[in-house]
């Protein structure tokens, strides 16, 4: 942890309130995000228990699996989820703007610009916590290989029509969430923790209720008091006052409330099945509905506080002004969304279970570039982030004390002015180290020349001064100007092009087999009651 954020945490301890870690918002927050609060059944992967989902804080859609081990109910949950998520996704696919992309012309092998569509906006999915992001991946993995009756009339348990497509989108979002700085799928806890420091540890910060107690306290309650209540406070029935943000439920809830309610539901189903006359069937049906309503009520009671908490978190974030370069990253997210839209439209198969050699390497390279980009952009957007880099010796703020004009020694001399600058910061400058400042949003480079006797630095400005002998107006800093310089580059270089999958070299196992198709997951008898 950097000293500056450690200090912020300690100030939070002292004041009992969260303290800022950022002065602008570093993530895109959509005007119309889709919030998803999922719950799952303990001990079983891919057995959802329920969810609240929707784009309106006041009108969540409640989805509940009354008996999580019933395959039909599970499928109808997934079908309902698809009916909430996919229309939302679809509402972004058709609104496009014209954009350019450089592609390699297959005939000439040269790079050419092609006109393509770029979706003007993209769907944004918000879940309560990191476990929620993991659960989105799990849902994606469990549904994208399902077969519908249309795809495969022979399949013993056909999935509802749109479920595999839901799986592909959730998979794409889950994967994109691993790209640093991406905002397509975000956890509310991550959003809050990026922007504020609490007086507790980062482990405790994963609890959304406790986190909000520091950030948005109830009247008169201090951060630690509220957080403790959120963590362990229970009512007279032993239930948590602040249910976990999921997808796991509290064991006390499972054992004391949910299990009896599901048992009642099971009994009602059996009774209904065994009904021998119309009257008994009517009574059985009534009892089944009551039992079902009770399970729904219980699941909703666990989901609703978290649902409200996520929207509170979004409200807090919206109060921060957006960082200047957040839009640039959101544009990359829009490209990512558009790209996946195109793959779906083109009829490509679902994402494979495992990345192949090339896909893994190129994803890693993209994420490393995104990480570099994010670190640079956040520092350029936010003086508080820059302060951390200055403390680490990776940036410095300096006042220009003197400008001496100088030129290269070539036939057509180009300007290379020397700047003498004064700073209180202590950058780790090696000989000839390059430093950068932002000039009209673009980086301008200089190199470190020497230290003067009085401790000031001499820098040689290297570029962005135009083509003539005299530097372009405004391209050379003036005496007295205060400028932030960074030792890191502002933009990331494009990495090398990797081979095509069919050209995978022998060192990495050669080209992948082309006859391998992704089969749907095996069906287990335990899935059905």
């Amino acid at each position, binding site marked *: *942890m950097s000293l500056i954020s450690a200090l912020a945490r300690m100030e939070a301890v002292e004041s009992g309130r969260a303290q800022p870690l950022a002065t602008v918002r570093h993530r895109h927050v959509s005007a119309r995000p889709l919030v998803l609060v999922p719950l799952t059944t303990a001990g*079983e992967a891919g057995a959802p228990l329920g969810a609240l989902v929707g784009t309106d804080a006041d009108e969540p859609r409640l989805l509940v699996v009354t008996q999580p081990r019933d395959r039909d109910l599970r499928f109808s949950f997934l079908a309902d989820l698809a009916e909430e998520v996919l229309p939302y996704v679809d509402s972004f696919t058709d609104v496009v703007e014209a954009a350019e992309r450089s592609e390699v012309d297959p005939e000439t092998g040269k790079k050419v610009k092609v006109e393509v569509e770029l979706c003007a906006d993209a769907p944004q999915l918000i879940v309560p916590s990191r476990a929620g992001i993991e659960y989105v991946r*799990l849902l994606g993995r469990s549904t994208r290989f399902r077969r519908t009756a249309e795809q495969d009339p022979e399949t013993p348990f056909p999935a509802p029509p749109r479920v595999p497509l839901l799986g592909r989108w959730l998979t794409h979002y889950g994967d994109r969430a691993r790209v640093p700085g991406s905002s397509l799928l975000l956890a509310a806890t991550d959003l809050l923790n990026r922007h504020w420091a609490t007086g507790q540890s980062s482990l405790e910060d994963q609890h959304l209720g406790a986190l909000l107690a520091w950030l948005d306290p109830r009247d008169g309650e201090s951060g630690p008091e509220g957080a403790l209540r959120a963590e362990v406070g229970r009512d007279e029935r032993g239930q948590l006052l602040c249910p976990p943000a999921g997808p796991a439920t509290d064991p006390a809830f499972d054992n004391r409330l949910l299990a009896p309610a599901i048992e009642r539901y099971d009994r009602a189903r059996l009774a209904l099945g065994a009904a021998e006359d119309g009257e008994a069937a009517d009574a059985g049906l009534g009892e089944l509905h009551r039992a079902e309503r009770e399970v729904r009520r219980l699941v909703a009671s666990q989901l609703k506080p978290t649902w409200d908490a996520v929207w509170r978190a979004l409200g807090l974030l919206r109060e921060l002004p957006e960082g200047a370069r957040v839009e640039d990253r959101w544009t990359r997210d829009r490209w990512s969304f558009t790209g996946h839209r195109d793959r779906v439209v083109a009829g490509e198969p679902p994402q494979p279970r495992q990345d192949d050699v090339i896909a893994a390497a190129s994803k890693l390279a993209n994420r490393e570039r995104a990480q570099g980009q994010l670190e640079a952009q956040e520092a350029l957007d936010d003086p508080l982030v820059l*302060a951390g880099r*200055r403390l680490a010796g990776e940036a410095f703020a300096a006042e220009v004390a003197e400008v001496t004009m100088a030129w290269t020694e070539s036939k057509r001399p180009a300007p290379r002015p020397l700047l003498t600058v004064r700073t209180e910061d202590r950058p780790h400058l090696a000989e000839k180290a390059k430093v950068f400042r932002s000039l009209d949003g673009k980086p301008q480079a200089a190199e470190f020349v020497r230290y003067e006797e009085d401790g000031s630095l001499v820098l040689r400005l290297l570029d962005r001064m135009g083509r003539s002998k005299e530097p372009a107006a405004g391209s050379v800093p003036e005496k007295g100007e205060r400028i932030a310089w960074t030792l890191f580059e502002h933009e990331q270089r494009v990495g090398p092009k990797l081979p095509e999958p069919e050209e995978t070299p022998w060192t990495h196992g050669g080209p992948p087999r082309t006859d391998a198709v992704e089969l749907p*997951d*095996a*069906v287990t008898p*335990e899935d059905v009651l």
Partner: protein
Amino acid sequence: MAELRGPGTAPRALDARALAALAANPGCRRRALLDGAGVDKAALASKLGSPAPFGQSQFAIMRGNSFEAKVKADGGRELLRLLGIEEPGAVSLPDLAAAGPQGRTARTALALREATGAGAWALLDHPLLALEVAGSPVYLEPDAVVVSPDGRWTVVEIKSFPMIDGAADASKVGAAARQSAVYVLALERMAAVTEGATVAHSVLLVCPKDFSNVPTASVVDVRKQRSVTRRQLARLTRIEEIADALPEGTTFDVAGCSAAELTEAVESVPHAYAPECLAACELAFHCRARAREAGAVETLGRAVRGELGGLTTVGAVLAAARGEAGDPDDPAVAALRRARALRQEALDRASALSEEASACH
């Protein structure tokens, strides 16, 4: 040790949670003493007013039991298939039932000896092993041990978290590996006195495959965990020293002492609270409250300490940062002052900017 636990209280086994707590915080003397003496920390924590938040859902327990039954079905053949043995011949399933832990461990030892001499496959279902820790036996119960015809003993650990596309939650696999490593250590002591026996340094981890209830398995090399745990258990023997430093008559007898007495007893042993304890130790909430009262910087995470040098409390750090205390020549103090100045400068600048912005509107 029995005095510390209280008369008539059976010692708690060194279960998975105790092992996890040991791994998470081997340097905590309070945890070492309580676990070493076999004190029921969950009961103790409740009595201290900070009950442990651990519990298990009955859904998970049911699912886990049905899965384990499935793994052990077919006279052990399913499990051997997971080990890669398709044609095991006759598989012996010795009866390990006996009275009391001593009886069960003796029965297990006998079964292991017989199976090793028999030169055939054998599956020991829930054997009971004993490992001497801090001078007293600790009982351990692996899910299963497989004996191969060449006398090799392999620990089998059955877990209910899934292996999806060959991968599983790495922190859960890590915990399973540490747990299994203890079984390997206990088996090694027995193998040393059993002719022809060896103990595999890899264990078989069995989990549900993907989203199904079908078992799948992965071989996990536990050599590292074994050597680490061996050292940590060796260190546990020092709990005698910790106990010797206690005031005369100190006891953690949960049934026989008042909350105030227990609090005093617990406070007489130093803790080494870190946030990682919350997921592993029943007493964590109690210790956290104490650490917060003392203003310990560790409450914010172990990593916070790295650059603070000798400053150990939040108050001391803030005073040093504000220039109210501390030696300016201490690099930690100097760095804190720079950090605070830079932070303040940035916040001031941001608020000036936002005032400007609101003035424009």
